C-alpha cells in the first residue's frame, strides 16, 4: 500500500518528462495528483480503521501520525497542482516560461511530492534523508525563474538548510548511539517502532544533547527563529504554487520530525526539558515575526513571516503538552496548511495581475478581482486567528491548555503576540483588498483553476472553524495518543 502511494508521484514525474506540449503535461500532472490523493486517502482510511501498516521489511511504516502527514501532503499537493495549471499556464501564455521549463516544473513538482510523502512514511531516523531530499528538490524549483533574487534565495536556502540538517544528523547519530546500547546493533535500532518501546531506558544525558541538535537542525527547516532567516527569501521567491507547498506542507514535515523525536526524547529526559525548549523557540519565533509582519512591504514575505509565527505556535502547543496542548498543535498543523495555501493562492493571483510584490502598489482587489479579494479577506481573517475560522479553534485550544497547566507567562505572551500580529497583518491585507484599483489594472479573475483550488481550501477553513466532524476528531485523538 505505502509503496503504491510513493510510486504514484514518482511515476507521474517520469511521465511528465515524456510530454510534448502544455495540454499533455497538465493532464498528466492533474491525473497524477488525483491518483496520489486517492491513494493517500485510502492509506489514511486503512490506518485509522485497521491500525499501523508496515511494508518493505520494516523500512516503510505508517501509523496514525504518518497518515495525518500523508493526508496534509496529498491534499495540499492536489490543490496546488490544480492551482499550478492556472498559475503556470498564465506564466506560459505570457512567455515567462517555455515548454521546457514548464515540463521541468511539473517533473520537479511531483518529485517534491514524492520526497514529502517519504518523510511521512519512513519508519526510521532515516527520516533525515527524506528531509534533505525535500531541500534538494525544492531548491531546484526555486531557480526555475532565472532571476537574481531567486538564485540568491535558492543558494541561501540550500546552504542554511543543509547546515541545519547536518546538525539534525548529529542528533540522529546520538539517538542511534543511545538506542544501540539498549537494543544492540541491529538494523532495527533506528526504527520508530522499536525505539519508542525502549525509549525510557535511554541515557538522558545523550538524549538531551540529541534533542538539542534535532531541534536546531529540523528547526532550521521548520522555520523556527532564530534559524528562520532563509525562509522569507525562499518562500517569496519560489513560484507561488510551490510557495504554498513550502509554507503549508514542507514546514509541517520538518515539524513532524521534531515531534517524533520529542516523543522519544521525552520518554527518557522527562517532560520539563523538551517542553521548555519548544516553548522558548516557539515564543522566539512569534516575537521575531512581530516587527517583520508590522513593517513588511512585500506581501509574499508577509505570508512567509506569518508561517514563522505559526510554526512557533505549533511548537508552543507541543511544549505545553497534555492532551489539549498536543491536540491543538496537531490540529493547527492541518489548519495552517489549508489557510496558508489559500492565502498564497490568493496573493498569487494578485501577483499575476499586478506584477509586483509591493503591498503599497496594490489596492482594490475586491473590486478588480471579487473572488480573489473575498478569499484574501477571509483567509487574512482566518490566518490571524479570528473566529469563526479554523485557526481560531486550534489557537484557542493551545491557549486554553497553556493557561490551565500553569504556563501563565508564556500563554500571556503568546496571546499578546497573536493580537499584535492580527492588527499588523490585517492592516496590510485590508490595504490591499479595499480602496480603488490601481490605474491600468483590468478587472477580471484569473483562470478558473485557481478559483477552484481556493474554493476547495476555503471549505476546510470554514467548516473546521465551526465544527470538527467526529471521524476527524477520532483521527486527531489517535495522533495525540502517539505523540504523548
Amino acid at each position, binding site marked *: 500500500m505505502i509503496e503504491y502511494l510513493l510510486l504514484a508521484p514518482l511515476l507521474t514525474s517520469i511521465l511528465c518528462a515524456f510530454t510534448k506540449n502544455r495540454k499533455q503535461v497538465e493532464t498528466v500532472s492533474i491525473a497524477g495528483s488525483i491518483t496520489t490523493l486517492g491513494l493517500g486517502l485510502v492509506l489514511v482510511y486503512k490506518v485509522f480503521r485497521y491500525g499501523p501498516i508496515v511494508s518493505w521489511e520494516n523500512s516503510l511504516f505508517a501509523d496514525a501520525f504518518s497518515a495525518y502527514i500523508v493526508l496534509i501532503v496529498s491534499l495540499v499537493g492536489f490543490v496546488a497542482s490544480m492551482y499550478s495549471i492556472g498559475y503556470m499556464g498564465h506564466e506560459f501564455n505570457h512567455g515567462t516560461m517555455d515548454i521546457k521549463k514548464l515540463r521541468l516544473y511539473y517533473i520537479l513538482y511531483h518529485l517534491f511530492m514524492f520526497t514529502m510523502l517519504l518523510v511521512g512514511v519512513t519508519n526510521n531516523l532515516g527520516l533525515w534523508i527524506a528531509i*534533505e531530499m525535500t531541500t534538494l528538490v525544492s531548491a531546484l524549483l526555486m531557480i526555475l525563474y532565472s532571476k537574481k533574487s531567486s538564485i*540568491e534565495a535558492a543558494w541561501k536556502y540550500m546552504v542554511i538548510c543543509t547546515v541545519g540538517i547536518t546538525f539534525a*544528523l548529529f542528533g540522529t*547519530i546520538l539517538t*542511534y*548511539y543511545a538506542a544501540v546500547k539498549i537494543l544492540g546493533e541491529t538494523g532495527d535500532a533506528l526504527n520508530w517502532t522499536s525505539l519508542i518501546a525502549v525509549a525510557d531506558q535511554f541515557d538522558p544525558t545523550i538524549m538531551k544533547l540529541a534533542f538539542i541538535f534535532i531541534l536546531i537542525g529540523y528547526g532550521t527547516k521548520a522555520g523556527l527563529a532564530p534559524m528562520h532567516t532563509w525562509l522569507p527569501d525562499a518562500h517569496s521567491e519560489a513560484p507561488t504554487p510551490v510557495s504554498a507547498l513550502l509554507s503549508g506542507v514542507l514546514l509541517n514535515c520538518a515539524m513532524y520530525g521534531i515531534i517524533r523525536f520529542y516523543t522519544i526524547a521525552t520518554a527518557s529526559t522527562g517532560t520539563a526539558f523538551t517542553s521548555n525548549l519548544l516553548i522558548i523557540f516557539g515564543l522566539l519565533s512569534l516575537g521575531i515575526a512581530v516587527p517583520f509582519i508590522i513593517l513588511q512591504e512585500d506581501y509574499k514575505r508577509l505570508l512567509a513571516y506569518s508561517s514563522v509565527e505559526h510554526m512557533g505556535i505549533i511548537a508552543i502547543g507541543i511544549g505545553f503538552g497534555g492532551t489539549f496542548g498536543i491536540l491543538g498543535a496537531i490540529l493547527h498543523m492541518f489548519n495552517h496548511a489549508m489557510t496558508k495555501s489559500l492565502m498564497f493562492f490568493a496573493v498569487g493571483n494578485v501577483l499575476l495581475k499586478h506584477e509586483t510584490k509591493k503591498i503599497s502598489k496594490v489596492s482594490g482587489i475586491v473590486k478588480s478581482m471579487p473572488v480573489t479579494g473575498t478569499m484574501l479577506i477571509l483567509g487574512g481573517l482566518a490566518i490571524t486567528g479570528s473566529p469563526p475560522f479554523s485557526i481560531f479553534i486550534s489557537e484557542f485550544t493551545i491557549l486554553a491548555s497553556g493557561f490551565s497547566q500553569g504556563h501563565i507567562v508564556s500563554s500571556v505572551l503568546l496571546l499578546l503576540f497573536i493580537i499584535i500580529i492580527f492588527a499588523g497583518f490585517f492592516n496590510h491585507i485590508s490595504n490591499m483588498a479595499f480602496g480603488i484599483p490601481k490605474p491600468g489594472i483590468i478587472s477580471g479573475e484569473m483562470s478558473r483553476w485557481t478559483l477552484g483550488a481556493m474554493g476547495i481550501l476555503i471549505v476546510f477553513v470554514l467548516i473546521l472553524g465551526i465544527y470538527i466532524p467526529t471521524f476527524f476528531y477520532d483521527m486527531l485523538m489517535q495522533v495525540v495518543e502517539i505523540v504523548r
Partner: protein
Amino acid sequence: MPELILGSEMMQLIIALILVTTFMILGSKRLYSCVRAFSIQSLLLACVAGIVAYSTGKIDIYIVAFLTLIIKAAIIPYIFLYIIREIKVKKEVELYVNISPSLIIGGVLFVISYYLIKSIHILSELSSLSLSASMSLVSIGLFIMISRKKALMQMLGILIMENGLFLGAISLTYGMPLLVELGIFFDVLIGVLIMGILIFRINRTFESIDTDMLKTLVG
C-alpha cells in the same frame, strides 16, 4: 573490544592527520590545495572506516569505506575541479578573515570541542578523542563557511562538516545501518551536484561567485 580498535595507535594517528588536513584547508589561499586537502581528508576517513570494518569484520562497513573512497575522495573533488575549470574562477580563496587569525580560531575551536566532549562523562576516554575531532571538524567547517567569500568554499565547508559527522558516527556506533548510510551518501552526492548547478547559475547571473553579491534580500 570496541575501545581497543579506536584506541589503537594507528587510529589515533589517522585522526590526527584528519585534523591536519582540516587546518591545511584553513591555512590555504589556493582553491586547488583546499580541494586536494579535502580529498586527502576523505581518503583518511575511508581508512578509518576500513580499519573499523577490518576489526569488526562487518561487510556493511567495508561498503561504507569503499563508498567514502569513491564518492568523497574521488567524485566530489572531481566535481569541484570541474566547476573551477569551467567557470574560470580566480584560483584564490578570498577571505573575510585572514589566514593567520583563521588558523588561531581553528585552534581555539579544536580546544573548545576537546573540552566540551571531555565533559560528557558517559563517553570512554578513547572514543572521546575521535568524537572531539569530529566536533572540531563540524565547527571548523562552519567557520570556513562564514569566513570565505566564494560560494565554492561554502560548499566545501558543508562537506567538511559532513565528514566530521561521519567520523563521529563511525567512532560512536560503527556507522548507522547500511540503508541509512547509503541514503546519506546519495543525499550528499546529489546535494553537491545541485550546489554545483546553483554555482553555475550564480556565476552566469552575477558574473562572479562571491557571496557578497547575494545580499539583496532582507527584511
